[in-house]
């Protein structure tokens, strides 16, 4: 097997700024208060993922999951350590990024697809499939600003899920859209997993992770505290009790857990 994602001793430090203007900073300094504070959002994390694995990334809010995903995606750079990836990356991260409320769904679709890395040809080829998946045929020429939040989220999802890539990242995604749409997304994710692409999936839902993933990573305050089989990981987190029978047909509690 070949490595798909290689993360070595990665640390990412963020700065919390308490004051912004010169006046506030001066006042804080004279009072001897702290004006900024550094902390490691990701702290010396290492792991290697092979091509075709599907990983569930879990952990409490603020444990650094999104930060890690952003570094794998290439949006942020690690302060120390290195991240290497093989092939193209896409995912449910930037869904709807760059949507312009005053432009039509059609224009936004084309632009968003390009932002996610699709070529002109690829967009033309997949256009109908995307519109069909989003279920927005009749609203395509209307302004995105007039879509309901669920509708614009659906459009964003539909585009993102149609991008070809070797690595697919998803960050707490199934919280949007109505129930049939969520089921469709879930099915699509399973398809992606079974096509041999590397899947990297952030979720709080034990049921989905159990269903989707071959391995679980757990972050706690930026540190990697667990790396192993899903069942053990879920036990580690104490999420066992949230189990649902059929993960594709997620019930409302489970969706809540995904937010």
């Amino acid at each position, binding site marked *: *097997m070949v490595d798909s994602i290689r993360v070595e001793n990665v640390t990412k430090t*963020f700065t919390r700024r308490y004051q912004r203007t010169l006046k506030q900073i001066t006042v804080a300094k004279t009072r001897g208060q702290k004006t900024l504070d550094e902390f490691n959002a990701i702290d010396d994390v290492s792991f290697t993922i092979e091509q075709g*694995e*599907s990983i569930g990334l879990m952990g409490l809010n603020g444990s650094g999951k999104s930060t890690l995903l952003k570094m794998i995606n290439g949006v942020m750079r690690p302060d120390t350590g290195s*991240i290497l*990836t093989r092939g193209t990356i896409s995912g449910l991260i*930037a869904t709807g990024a760059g949507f312009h409320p005053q432009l039509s769904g059609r*224009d936004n679709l084309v632009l968003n697809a390009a*932002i996610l890395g699709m070529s002109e040809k690829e967009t033309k080829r997949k256009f109908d499939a995307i519109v069909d998946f989003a279920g927005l045929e009749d609203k395509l020429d209307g302004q995105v600003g007039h879509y309901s939040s669920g509708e614009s989220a659906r459009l964003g999802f539909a585009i993102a899920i149609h991008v070809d890539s070797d690595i697919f990242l998803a960050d707490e995604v199934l919280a949007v859209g109505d129930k049939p749409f969520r089921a469709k997304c879930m099915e699509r994710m399973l398809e992606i997993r079974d096509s041999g692409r590397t899947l990297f999936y952030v979720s709080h839902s034990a049921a989905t992770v159990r269903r989707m993933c071959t*391995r679980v990573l757990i972050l706690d305050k930026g540190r990697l505290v667990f790396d192993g089989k899903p069942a053990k990981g879920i036990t580690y987190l104490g999420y066992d009790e949230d189990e649902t029978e059929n993960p594709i047909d997620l019930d409302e509690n489970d969706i809540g857990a995904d937010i």
Partner: protein
Amino acid sequence: MTDLAADPVSQAPVDEADLPPLVAPSSRTGLKAVVQRRYLLKLLVRREISARYQGSVLGLMWSYINPLSQFCIYFFVMGVIFNLHKSIPNFAIHIFSAIVIVHFFTETMGAGTRSIVRNRQIVQKMAMPREMFPVATMLTSLYHVGPQLVILVVACGLSGWVPDAYGMASLVVGIAIIMLLGTGFALLLSAANVFFRDVGSAVNIFMNLIRFGVPMIYSYEMVQTRFGSFAQYYLYNPIADAVLLFQRAFWVGTVDPSNPQQPVMPEHLLGWGVSMVGVSIVVLGIGQVIFSRLEGKIPERL
């Protein structure tokens, strides 16, 4: 913690040589990468063009109302009140050719400075060459130069314009200077604006100064008579050169040879212009280097 063995999904042996190499996911940036993704660039420019005035009644007209209103102010205040249109032949064309250039530059720099912050949604989520946004603003401003040129050409035609090859070359060089210089400044300022939002306000002051550093409401002849041989230092300002090149392209050809007031242009203007293209490339290079330095921290500071 060490329960590592995950089920391998496929057992087929894979030859690593056939696969794309392991690379840092954030590696493809810079102006070169922007050119490689020109399809996206084209769409971003198109979005900016069609979205800028959507929903306003006059729409695209606003792109012309702004320079035209400036034109009227300068023409009436300077020309009529201070009587400059007596000492500068075809004063209106003299002003307007300068306004087209200055407006192109200030639009590029002003909108360029805000471009990254305005697109923060994309910048925070997608890995892409972020130079894309300042470059797209420059191209959007360039697009708006087109119709202004049409107005200028029509006005010149009505005043008996005789185009010439040297003038057309000057036109191209003048535009090139602003494209390069504007992108350079936009790069630098757009990154700086992420860290200090004050940059946007400071830029506005700077842009007001630009209008007085170029021969718009006064002529180059006045600079020469006032400063004599020091007038050449005036030419070290690339924006002033771009304006002069534009006036060489349009205004000079409209003055009738029999007119006792003949336009005065610096010697070797095109040579100056070409050197300023070089200077602008250097500025662009510096802009790119600083941008790359700051870029790593942009997504987390937005």
